[in-house]
């Protein structure tokens, strides 16, 4: 039976760098994290700025990131096998696009998958999914939450 986790991060948008703001990946080919819920909003002073976010596959693990510990939704579950991180400074090579959207800083965006239609990581090692910012009119602090199961 799959176990569900959430990862939360407050990060500054980094448009054009090709580095993931928030990502999960696996270093052993034993699990396939499946993203089924993504929430992105902005904190700070409200302003009419736009940010284009993209969810992409990663073809290499990130480096220089801050490690995030996925929280199990059910406290009885153990720690996640998948690894999560935010604000990578290197690698995290951007791969195939899985979804993208452009949102105003004043808006809170959410995407929810129907059961069985999640964004699934490939089962190879060091392969995952990340949220990238492709463009923004001004840097902003994005509050992100991702729910995934593995």
């Amino acid at each position: 039976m799959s176990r569900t986790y959430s990862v939360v991060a407050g990060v500054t948008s980094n448009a054009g760098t090709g580095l993931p703001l928030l990502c999960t990946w696996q270093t052993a080919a034993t699990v396939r994290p499946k993203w089924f819920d993504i929430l992105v909003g902005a904190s700070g002073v409200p302003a009419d700025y736009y940010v284009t976010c993209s969810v992409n596959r990663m073809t290499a693990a990130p480096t220089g990131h801050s490690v995030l510990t996925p929280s199990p939704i059910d406290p009885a579950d153990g720690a996640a096998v998948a690894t999560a991180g935010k604000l990578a400074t290197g690698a995290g090579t951007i791969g195939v696009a899985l979804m993208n959207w452009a949102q105003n800083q004043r808006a809170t965006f959410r995407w929810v998958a129907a059961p069985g239609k999640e964004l699934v990581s490939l089962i190879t090692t060091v392969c995952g999914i990340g949220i990238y910012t492709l463009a923004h009119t001004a840097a902003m602090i994005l509050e992100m939450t991702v729910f995934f199961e593995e």
Partner: protein
Amino acid sequence: MPIDREGVLLPGEPQFERHAHGAMISNGVEIGHTLQCPHCGAHFLSIKGSGARRGYCYHCNAVLCGKLVCMTCVPFEKMQELLEKG
């Protein structure tokens, strides 16, 4: 012409999907549905009148995302198996 829906820019009027694979919600309002490509697993919005050529896989019985690599039928699960085998 992009339209603003609850603070999210959409490339046009989104298509209602009878069996949506995902929902986009902004400020608590459902603003569009997404479909999932059965070959690469990507989610995409269908926009009314966009003229986008996506294709349809009769084997998977699903709409494709339109990427050239997805025009050949390799179901996502099959791709996973191939990767697993190396």
